[in-house]
């Protein structure tokens, strides 16, 4: 490799600034003449360079912005300073950036982990609050006049052959019944209270859970399965009825059972395969729309449901 190959054409600038053509080494002259036409061109460029260096720097003192620019800027700065929160925020951002060294992967991962932990903590706290609220409501109800009872209830066997959306109920049979504790929440009120909703209603004990497709089970959240009681049933005479799924996000109602005129239960399977058991107790009917029955949510992915029903 030739010695002069260590030069690049742009390196001539350095030579121009330092040496006249006569002062160049033979090797440098050779290099220069590879990129410039002649010694004259080299000298002309050198003269231009030196003139520029001397000339451009010569009138620096003559150019300054007006004093009013400085005054205006200082005024603007003070105005912004008055809006202290922004300054504080800028300082915080810069401080965090300088302190945390986000360029290091370990710092980035660390921040991500901290964010996840904080997020989980908040989420769990909220879940805890919801459960706490439920317990609080239950406790409040109990404290009125009906003590909380632990009642053995049957577990309703899932009926796998049931069609989606329109699922006939299945009666409980003795062999299906297994002991299980379900808290049946009762609220203040009685059947007569329900009549306030509809003064013309029969005041007898015949309680209708639903008229055709009108009585619905309302849900706490959009995530919860929506189900509807589709059949008018005289719960005093019939011990089964049908609940239809009305929400695309859920559900197959696999079985519904009414045990008596005042209580019953249902099992609902979500599309995800999660099974939810519902129970209700009509003794808890009130006229203010308060849920008489709180469902038992056995799943993990939806909040507890509240079953409402309409009285006639």
């Amino acid at each position, binding site marked *: 490799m030739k010695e002069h190959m260590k030069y690049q*054409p742009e390196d001539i600038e350095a030579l121009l600034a330092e040496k006249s053509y006569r002062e160049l080494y033979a090797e440098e002259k050779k290099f220069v003449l590879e990129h410039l036409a002649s010694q004259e061109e080299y000298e002309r460029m050198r003269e231009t360079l030196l003139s520029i260096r001397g000339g451009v*720097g010569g009138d620096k003192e003559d150019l300054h912005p007006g004093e009013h620019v400085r005054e205006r800027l200082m005024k603007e700065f003070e105005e912004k300073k008055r809006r202290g929160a922004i300054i504080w925020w800028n300082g915080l951002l810069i401080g965090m950036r300088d302190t945390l060294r986000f360029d290091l992967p370990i710092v980035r991962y660390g921040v991500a982990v901290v964010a996840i932990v904080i997020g989980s903590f908040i989420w769990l706290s909220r879940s805890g609050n919801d459960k706490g609220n439920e317990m609080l409501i239950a406790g409040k109800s109990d404290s009125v006049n009906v003590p909380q009872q632990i009642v053995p209830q049957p577990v309703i066997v899932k009926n796998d052959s049931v069609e989606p959306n329109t699922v006939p109920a299945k009666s409980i049979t003795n062999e299906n019944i297994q002991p299980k504790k379900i808290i049946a929440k009762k609220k203040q009120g009685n059947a007569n209270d329900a009549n306030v909703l509809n003064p013309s209603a029969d005041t007898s004990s015949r309680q209708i859970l639903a008229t055709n497709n009108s009585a619905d089970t309302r849900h706490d959240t959009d995530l919860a399965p929506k189900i509807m009681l589709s059949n008018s049933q005289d719960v005093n005479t019939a011990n089964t009825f049908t609940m239809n799924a009305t929400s695309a996000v859920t559900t197959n109602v696999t079985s519904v059972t009414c045990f008596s005129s005042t209580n019953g239960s249902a099992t609902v399977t979500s599309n995800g395969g999660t099974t939810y058991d519902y129970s209700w107790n009509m003794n808890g009917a009130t006229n203010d729309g308060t849920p008489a029955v709180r469902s038992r949510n056995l799943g993990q992915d939806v909040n507890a449901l509240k079953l409402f029903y309409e009285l006639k």
Partner: protein
Amino acid sequence: MNLFRPTYETEKDEQLMKRVAHGDGKAFGVLYDRYSSALFRYFHRMLWQNKEKAEDFVQDLFMKIIHKPESFDRERKFITWLYSVAHNMCKNEYRSQEVRKPVREEKAVYALAGEHGDSFGTRVDRKMFMKKLATELDLLDESQRTTFLLRYEENFSIKEIADVLECSEGTVKSRLFYTLKKLSGRLEEFAPDSKGVKLS
């Protein structure tokens, strides 16, 4: 009392910038005093020797520092960051003035031709040379002009220019070489062996 408290004037730009972000007006004033004149010259050269425009640009640039101090990239030297912002402002201005550019170039060429006619064969003083140089600089493309001014007016190192323009040092050197070659051809009358003028 803190006996070792540094004075603002001796503090580094980066440290002053940190103070500015925390609302220190005096630090801002020191930064302004350090760089306003140099930036004004730079804008003046880059924006067709228009003093009003140069003043506006200096003000706009420092306004950015006031309102977005966090945009300062702490990985870079303050001065190169500052000039890269200035450079981008000029590029934006060129874009917005694109329609007017041919007219301006035409004017510059005519002006140069006229001056050639008037001064050819006569001895020209430094002021005349600078005037011609300024005209020639206006005819250069934006990247060549910026490189040239940062190198010969602001005395930036090759590395600093590369940082401002976000290009390689080789590119900077190359631009300087070809700009110099171009200028020496256009300012030939000032060369020592030409029949034209000799710079005093």
